[in-house]
């Protein structure tokens, strides 16, 4: 729009300027759309391919070498490097929680592609475009060495088997059915639980099995790898230009032996990887956009089943918390010095450290150091109960302190022993006073209980995560899950208000 408008034109009718303004806007819009549409040209002009991965993925994918915590190595790190080089740009690693890599990619996050052991499955293809595979893996069953009998996954029907959340192993076991599936957040802790005997098997991808079995004589691979699958680079949907470039580059890396060199270095090359050179895309990829709300008949029962776990973990935790909390409050308030200090220490430690840390400590720490193998459910109840006991103790203490001093004096003057005075006079009044805070905490625990999903316990939030990752429908499933949480806490607070009213009436 080089034409300059002389000053005199400003008093002309406004409409005259409109075509010009419209065309400027159109051009701007077009350039915006083009910039958005072509991620490849953006990568080119930037000179950098940003790839998302989770550095917690571990060996052999991506990990810190033993003697250098600042550097990252792994076959995916080197693959990304080689891939970028082949595209004529540099590569840049971007850290992102593994579970959220594909959702973040779809949101137009701060990376262009995902290179993170992402499988080329219909589920993933519904959420992003995927390149031709750069790695062939298979399912490997791992069991304890001292158990010679188990040779294939069918030998473990009805037994607890660990899998990575939302992985192909997870989906495979669900499809086969009949297993006691234990869902883990990472690729490390299920091997620990297998060693200590909490679970009887782990089904995982071959690279993970290979690395974790090396030098570990307590575990062994059971049977041959099966169910091959492919890792591919995930690209935002519709970025066909970038996708084509990636396909060509990967094909080249397979043909010229670069992949073989990298994978051999990490002990991952096998005859099956030869298939990378000749791989052809399946004729038709079914793309299903799934909706949790439309398919509520499938998902609601799943979520409700998980909600039952949330309810019993919360109720169990709260029962422990209110009883232990009461004991702590009484000891802190009335017991002689050494006991009192212990109660104070307990309360301060459990209030002053994160619940998440306590859960890890109770579930993994105790099993490792003391051989105390609690089930995930027991550990969850224990962790929530022990943590909330500290809070409840302070609630009760506040209640005890707000009972007028004269009440204790009147009780003592009647010849009551301190113990009787507490039980008959002080506690009935103190508990009424602390009831609202206690019920508040009960409702809060419904929500806090979601944190126990880190120890292979599938409660409501975890179930939501698994299904949302599968379907990509965070909104619909999220609304359903929120609705269930709301129904639970609402019921709890209605019940609590009823009890409060009853006691209040009783009190008057």
């Amino acid at each position, binding site marked *: 729009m080089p034409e300059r408008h002389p000053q005199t034109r400003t008093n002309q009718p406004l409409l005259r300027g409109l075509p010009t303004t419209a065309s400027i806007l159109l051009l701007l819009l077009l350039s915006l759309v083009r910039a958005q549409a072509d991620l490849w040209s953006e990568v080119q002009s930037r000179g950098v391919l940003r790839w998302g991965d989770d550095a917690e993925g571990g060996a052999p994918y991506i990990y810190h070498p033993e003697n250098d915590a600042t550097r990252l190595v792994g076959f995916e790190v080197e693959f990304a490097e080689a891939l970028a080089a082949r595209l004529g740009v540099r590569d840049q690693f971007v850290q992102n929680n593994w579970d959220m890599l594909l959702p973040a990619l779809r949101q137009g996050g701060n990376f262009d592609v995902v290179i993170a052991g992402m499988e080329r499955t219909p589920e993933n293809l519904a959420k992003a475009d995927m390149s031709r595979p750069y790695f062939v893996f298979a399912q490997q069953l791992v069991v304890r060495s001292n158990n010679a009998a188990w040779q294939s996954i069918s030998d473990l029907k009805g037994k607890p088997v660990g899998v990575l959340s939302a992985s192909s192993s997870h989906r495979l076991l669900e499809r086969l059915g009949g297993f006691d599936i234990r869902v883990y957040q990472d690729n490390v802790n299920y091997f620990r639980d297998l060693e200590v005997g909490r679970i009887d098997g782990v089904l995982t991808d071959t690279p993970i099995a290979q690395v974790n079995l090396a030098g570990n004589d307590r575990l062994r691979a059971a049977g041959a790898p099966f169910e091959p699958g492919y890792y591919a680079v995930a690209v935002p949907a519709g970025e066909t230009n970038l996708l084509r470039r990636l396909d060509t580059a990967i094909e080249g890396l397979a043909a010229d032996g670069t992949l073989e060199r990298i994978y051999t270095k990490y002990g991952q090359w096998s005859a099956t990887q030869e298939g990378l050179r000749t791989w052809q895309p399946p004729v038709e990829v079914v793309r299903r956009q799934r909706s949790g709300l439309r398919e509520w008949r499938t998902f609601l029962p799943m979520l409700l089943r998980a909600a039952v776990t949330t309810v019993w973990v919360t109720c169990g935790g709260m029962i422990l918390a209110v009883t232990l909390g009461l004991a702590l409050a009484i000891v802190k308030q009335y017991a002689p010095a050494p006991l009192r200090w212990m109660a104070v220490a307990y309360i301060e430690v459990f209030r002053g450290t994160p619940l998440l840390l306590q859960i890890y400590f109770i579930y993994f720490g105790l099993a490792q150091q003391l051989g105390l193998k609690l089930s995930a459910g027991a550990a969850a109840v224990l962790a929530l109960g022990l943590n909330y006991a500290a809070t409840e103790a302070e609630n009760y203490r506040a209640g005890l302190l707000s009972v007028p001093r004269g009440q204790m004096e009147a009780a003592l003057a*009647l*010849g009551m022993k301190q113990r009787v005075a507490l039980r008959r006079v002080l506690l*009935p009044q103190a508990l009424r006073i602390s009831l609202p805070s206690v019920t508040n905490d009960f409702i809060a625990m419904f929500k806090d209980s979601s944190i126990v999903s880190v120890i292979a316990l599938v409660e409501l939030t975890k179930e939501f995560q698994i299904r949302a990752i599968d379907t990509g429908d965070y909104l619909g499933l999220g609304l359903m899950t929120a609705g269930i949480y709301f129904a639970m806490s609402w019921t709890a607070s209605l019940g609590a208000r009823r009890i409060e009213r009853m006691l209040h009436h*009783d009190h008057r």
Partner: protein
Amino acid sequence: MITVEKLTKSFGSHRVLDAVDHRQERSESVVILGPSGCGKSTFLRCLNQLEVPDSGRITISDVTVDCARPVPREVQRQLRLRAGMVFQQFHLFPHLTALENILEAPVHVQGRPRAEVLDEARALLAQVGLSDRAGHRPSQLSGGQQQRVAIARALAMRPAVLLLDEPTSALDPELREEVRDVLRRLADDGLTMLLVTHDLQLARDVSDRIRFFHGGQVVEEGRPEAVLDNPQHPRTREFMGKTGGG
């Protein structure tokens, strides 16, 4: 019935009770008067060990404690069982009804069967004129009614002596008379009572003897007419002048 020898108590450097002696016969009713801060309430609270005296000996009925040494809890409790206490602020148990307040200690301290105590508790409520308030909670009762329940609660334990700490002070003047009335009848019935009060009317009505406290000591004592109408000690005279006969 009550013998106190050289009872001494200090709060920090302030000597609240200075070697106070006290003797009281069965069925005798004694009133302690004195200005605020003279130690009279502390004296009463020391008798049933709500305050721990520094030294002195206390005997109530058959229990004697030597306050110079640590008193075992059980001995304290035995002393309290013999000395019922009525507080200025009543201190009824708010979560229990009037009747339950009276039943509480006989059932849960003495372990007596509830059915047996129930008749007694009803009789006590009748005695303080509150038969129709048995099922009411303290918050549903007036101050005067609460204090009358508190008196019944203390009597239910059949104490050898009833200690009353300013029993009418927290009440509106028009409610005081109902409490005085109950206490007058108890005195007439021969209950051993030791009262601390500012209420000169009450002192005149129920006491056989008045002791006047000042500075942690008894400075004057005698028949109520003598102390109230013709005080000898300058402090007593000053006090009567200010309080103006009730």
